[in-house]
């Protein structure tokens, strides 16, 4: 009997060890970013407030109508440009406020997607992008994957970011949202819940698809179809005022782009310009070009406030960096008319399989000594 008891004791004692050993070998099926306030399963903190951080209000224990559990997170974005940026966003980090200075990221190898639930207070709120990874610094994330723009509905909806095939061996920025004042001129309120990474072995890496035409750079101020961000301010960037929601006689729709160039040579360059980029501020350092191979031209409408304003160059592509645009094409110099006039950049024969710099203009003091105010609308690849 003693012998039997001894054997049983060994079996019972060994069983948990076996189970534990099995758990060690089997990679986890999911990894939680956020499920509920104070949940021990949460791995990241929504601490990385960016851009116009003064425009953001967060309630991370919002108890009304959570998608699951007890709480969701409420974000109120005012769109008031408190810091003058025109955009804002929040990163979930580990530890809090880690912009790559500490080694706090997780090895998420094996995860193939991030899922989350989101809803808008009214519906129609536009989030420019949701992102996994992408924090730089001394300990940079090994991947940056984004999805968007997304127009929210007033009911909970699940969204998925495909991470299959990505190097997730070090991720400090577990999740992030970014939006802009242009996309939400009146601000917006939205809710996020149940953010987690999942291991779905059936998911395949996302192939880069050829975008269908027309493909808009800019259609209207808050359109989800605006695919590029006017973030690449060049030369005397202090001389430029940009309004992406001008109501002054748009060519089509409810708004157009208004640009005031005051030719003060604030930075001493004597010229200035703006690139529309994807994502914002991508000077070829992020692998995020669109495949616009189906395009044969880029067309846009432009007018000068007085007529006679001279733009040295309108351009597509041409950003060169670690990830470069596959080609470039331009027209110019162009002397603008007072009336809306359509211009076209011929793209036939161009390799547009990878475009980060969707559109660009540049001008200078020499040809606009008194500055120039001009308008753009309906910028699109066709």
């Amino acid at each position: 009997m003693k012998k039997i008891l001894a054997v049983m004791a060994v079996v019972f004692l060994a069983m948990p060890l076996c189970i534990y050993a099995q758990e060690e070998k089997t990679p986890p099926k999911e990894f939680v970013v956020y499920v509920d306030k104070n949940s021990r399963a949460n791995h990241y903190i929504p601490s990385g407030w960016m851009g116009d951080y003064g425009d953001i209000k967060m309630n991370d224990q919002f108890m009304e109508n959570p998608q699951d559990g007890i709480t969701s997170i409420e974000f109120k974005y005012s769109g008031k440009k408190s810091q003058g940026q025109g955009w804002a966003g929040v990163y979930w980090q580990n530890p809090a406020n880690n912009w790559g200075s500490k080694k706090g990221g997780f090895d998420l190898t094996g995860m193939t997607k991030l899922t989350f639930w989101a809803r808008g207070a009214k519906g129609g709120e536009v989030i420019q992008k949701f992102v996994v990874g992408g924090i730089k610094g001394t300990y940079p994330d090994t991947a940056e994957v984004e999805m968007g723009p997304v127009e929210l509905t007033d009911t909970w909806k699940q969204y998925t970011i495909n991470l299959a095939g990505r190097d997730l061996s070090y991720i400090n920025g577990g999740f992030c949202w970014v939006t802009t004042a242009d996309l939400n001129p009146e601000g917006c309120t939205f809710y996020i819940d149940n953010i987690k990474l999942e291991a779905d072995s059936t998911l395949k890496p996302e192939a880069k698809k050829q975008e269908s035409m027309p493909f808009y750079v800019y259609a209207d101020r808050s359109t989800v179809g605006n695919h590029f961000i006017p973030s690449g301010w060049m030369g005397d960037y202090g001389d430029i005022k940009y309004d992406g929601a001008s109501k002054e006689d748009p060519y089509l729709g409810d708004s157009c782009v208004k640009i005031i160039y005051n030719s003060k040579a604030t930075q001493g360059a004597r010229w200035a310009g703006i690139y529309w980029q994807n994502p914002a501020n991508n000077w070829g350092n992020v692998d995020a070009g669109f495949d616009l191979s189906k395009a044969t031209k880029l067309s846009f409408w432009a007018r000068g406030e007085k007529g006679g304003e001279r733009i040295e160059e309108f351009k597509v592509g041409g950003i060169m960096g670690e990830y470069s645009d596959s080609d470039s094409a331009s027209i110019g110099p162009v002397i603008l008319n007072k009336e809306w006039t359509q211009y076209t950049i011929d793209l036939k024969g161009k390799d547009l399989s990878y475009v980060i710099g969707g559109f660009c203009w540049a001008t200078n003091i020499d040809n606009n000594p008194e500055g120039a105010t001009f308008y753009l609308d309906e910028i699109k690849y066709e």
Partner: protein
Amino acid sequence: MKLSTNKRNTIEHQGICHRDTGFKPVHRCTGALVFLFFLSFLLGASFKPASKVSVKKLKNGHFRLLVDRKPYIVKGVCYNPIPIGKNHESDWWSDPNKPWIVDGKLMKEMGVNTIRIYQPGDNPEEVKKVIRDLYELYGIRTILGNWLGFWEYPCPFYGDKDFQERVKNEVIRMVELYKDEPGVLLWILGNENNYSCLGRVNPWSNDEIDKEPDPQKKNAIRARIYYSFVNDIAGKIHEIDPNHPVALGNGELLGLESANQYCPDIDLVACIIYRGRTFGNLFNSLKATFDRPVVIAEFGADVYDAYLKKEDQNMQAFFLESQWRQIYSNIANAPQGAGNCLGGTIFEWSDEWWKHDENNPDSWKVHDTESNWSNGSYYFDIKAEGNKNMNEEWFGIVALSEELEDGLNKRIPRKAYYVIREFWKNPTIKKPKVKGKK
């Protein structure tokens, strides 16, 4: 469209004498000249007949450079061996220490077969000596160029007939002087002069341009004038020198739509390209706009990391190796390439210490580390202050030491020298590892 000078030039050449050497390619010479040639050979004279260099378009539309009917890939360097403490006006051609002898030996060991000279020195005998020494001692051929008055004060008056005539005569004199040198490979007309047509560098005008209100049409007129002028020179060169192709020295591909219209006598394009790791769609784009072969006549990378503020030989070697891989991917009959690349000349052989502050002689003795301009394609150090990451004095694949060796600054090959040497021994066309488009 004239792509090869072969047929026409063979006919024309029969009536042309070579005044400088008295020798002609043996297959075209009279019996007396053949006799003289062999006599001189027996007497130990080192002269060789000028090589026949031509561009051939293959049946598949690809291009090949032929030297004496053999395929030739230009594996070159831009050569301007300015010593430490001197500036661009330094007459290195007359240097009794003969820097080209030391450099030529190193070049040969690396596998360089061509040097590019932007414009020959003033003394023809000295120039010939350099060309001959490099060719006879090391088998290195020379590309000779001319600035076409691009840097003349106050601007190059391409719209002025007298200016055109003077520049043309200068080029013709160069061709007449050196066309019979066996070491000469080809001629390059200009170097980024097309930027002046866009008003970006050294802008120029004339009455016709001044009368035109539309700035795009102004540029079109400038392009017509400039490219017609270059074509005129090219045509003249072909009349007097049937043995060497004529290249258009062009910055990027800008303006080549006009060249396609006005430059039927141009045989190839010598492009100046600084696009970092890649040449992008350059080869296919050229095919679509101006279907001529291309020598990448200036490309490369500086070796100074302006962000970390230290020399980084790995960075330079990385860019150069990648660029050469692209060149080889686009030579004739390479799989999937455009087949229109004839090779390239790296910018540049050795550092030039005078460049950062060219008006300050004291700075010519200092290897300045302050960056001159910004180029995001060289992304390793783009985070440098003001994004200024290009260090004009640090483009050499050979460093210069202040230590003298036989009266010359000691040459110290950098890592890129060895990496490209190995690449040329066994050129491989690998797929890039990154997902981003090149």
